[in-house]
């Protein structure tokens, strides 16, 4: 057997505000990355950076920012802009993955407007979020995603009051097959600029879409997804099918 491309490799993941931005069980994403690395002999190193703590923009391969309650999200927004914006730009510019989920997606954008208040975001994604009157956008969701020339489906659950509008520099992450997406109207979901990705498919997105977990791992390591050791993914495929079926796809 050929020497695996991942032999002796290390995946370094940093979770931002892991004790505050975790409302929809975001740790499921970290579990999936960790286990799928461990099963392949990839050394998985997880660290966290909380309120007032420093962030090293050069030290990690994946930066993860989940969702939180409004109050916690506001605390984190202020802290992000004050102390973590520069390292995140550094990370993004060297091609590290920056993944924002739900509230984390909103904070990676330019701003979040709530009535007369405006929260400044990091600005890595050219998107603006506005809390408009009307129902929250809640439900199972499935989107079609084009990555590296392949077409995939991401399935999950969304629950957001904010409507996110893409600026001219932002590309959507995918096209809505079922569900609301960014604003319930445009038919687009999420945003992507290089390896910075935002999505409303909240909480445990990766357990429902382990193909995407593998894409993140391989992209972060700078190798082809096909070079990853294949795993017995029968339960993973069933879970993906289950989430797609819940969305009606």
């Amino acid at each position, binding site marked *: 057997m050929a020497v695996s491309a991942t032999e002796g490799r290390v995946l370094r993941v940093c979770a931002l505000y892991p*004790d*505050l931005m*975790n*409302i*929809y*069980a975001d*740790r*499921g994403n970290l*579990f*999936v990355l960790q*286990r799928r690395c461990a099963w392949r002999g990839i050394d998985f190193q997880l660290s966290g950076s909380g309120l007032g703590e420093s962030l090293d923009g050069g030290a990690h391969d994946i930066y993860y920012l989940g969702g939180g*309650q*409004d*109050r*916690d999200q506001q*605390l984190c927004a202020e802290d992000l802009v004050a102390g973590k914006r520069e390292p995140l730009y550094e990370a993004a510019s060297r091609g590290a993955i920056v993944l924002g989920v739900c509230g984390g997606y909103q904070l990676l954008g330019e701003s979040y407007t709530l009535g007369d208040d405006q929260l400044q975001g990091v600005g890595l994604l050219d998107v603006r979020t506005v809390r408009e009157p009307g129902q*929250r956008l*809640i*439900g*199972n969701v499935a989107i079609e995603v084009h990555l590296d020339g392949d077409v995939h489906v991401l399935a999950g*659950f969304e*629950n957001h009051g904010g409507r996110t509008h893409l600026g001219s520099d932002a590309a959507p992450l995918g096209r809505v097959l079922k569900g609301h997406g960014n604003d319930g109207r445009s038919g687009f979901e999420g945003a992507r600029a290089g390896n910075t990705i935002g999505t409303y498919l*909240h*909480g*445990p997105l990766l*357990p*429902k879409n382990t193909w995407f977990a593998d894409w993140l791992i391989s992209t972060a390591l700078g190798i082809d997804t096909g070079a990853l050791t294949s795993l*017995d993914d*029968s*339960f*993973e495929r*069933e*879970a993906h*099918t*289950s*989430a797609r079926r*819940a969305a009606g796809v």
Partner: protein
Amino acid sequence: MSALLEPKLALARVVGAVSRVHGGGGTSLPGKLLVRMDPSAIGVLAARLPRGSVVVSATNGKTTTATMAASILERAGISLVHNQAGANMAGGIASTLLTAAGRRGTIAGELGLFEVDELWLDRLAAQLHPQAIVLGNLFRDQLDRYGELDTIAERWTTAVSAGGTAARARLVCNADDPLVADLGRDRADVVYYGVEDDTLELEGMAHAADAKHCRRCGAPYTFDAIYLGHLGHYHCPSCGQRRPSPTVLARSVVLEGVRSARFRLSTPEGEADVKLALPGLYNVYNALAAAALAVALEIPLADIVTGLESTKAAFGRAETVTVGGRETRILLVKNPAGANEVLRTLALEPGSHDLLGVLNDNTADGHDVSWIWDADFELLAGRVRSATCSGTRAAELALRLKYAGVEPERITVVEDLSHALARVADDYLDEGDKPPLYVLPTYTAMLSLRELLVARGEANSSWR
């Protein structure tokens, strides 16, 4: 008013009877109809209760706390009107009152005892005018239905504040839950309850813990002890806010696996040893809530103790049934905090188990099943002989168990619950030593399970 109400009561009763004949299990249907015909019906009927009403609300433990309170109050000779089937929104409570209502403005009971859904507390308090309200705990739960925790805490604050619908009710609050304890801050007559036992301290806060920041100033609380989720002993290093001193206390707690729990109960009236026929620290908290309510109602300590000790498991809450000739416990799981306590209690049992996990995503369960990744299924790794995953989202539960460290070859997905039940009941009949079977269903799964067990002749059909 009440003359006009009578024909509506009669009509709602007929509809209820017809629905039962046609096999409708909906306990809240006649009540829903009644409330639609007369939006003030709950208030009018509740006003007939000579001793008024008391209300229990919480994320976790409402049904068990109310069951314990009923046991205590009945022992004290008080006849109750109690929504014991757990239908805890307006329709369910109206149905309960409708069943008890008699002719010419009478009602069969002295005191109303109602468990109330968290989101309905303010609206139902406006009609029930409760003399006392038990506020047990607030945990993250079904975010697609309830919204975030802060939102519910705000609604409760409005209800209990001056001018709110529950402003005149006596509060019975869990001192160990900062979100709940804060609601009594400006009141003089709150009965606080809590746990004081060093041996129960957890090493750290559960991953899914909420309420980490002071409700008053926003600074992070310092926790001096954590017992369960975010429940424990805390203070705010910034503004000085701290856990109120409870007058109803549990000390010397002994948790005896999935079977029972013991503790030393302390009340203003004295102390006593209590042995619960229900397991886990979460049921000690439920017992304290019921005891504190009884203290607020001036029930003698002896009745409190015997009432608690004679309480049996509420429907699906550590209830014991027989499946395929084997003793089986049904442990409802519906949100991370509740599930973690069930898993923690299971982990106290020696040896390995057979598991039947049933994950549904119906409206009453929450459509979003993300929460299973906040529950610590890791506690079961290495302890599971076989895990059968069932329900509408069975495959996602199976995946959760795999990533929690349960070996994939021990996990089977059987989406259909009747097939899954047949599998765990029958497939092991020929084997010698069978490990205990634990069923962990979500809410609607628990209801389906009950129907299937009745059909199999393994449970009786009464809705307790």
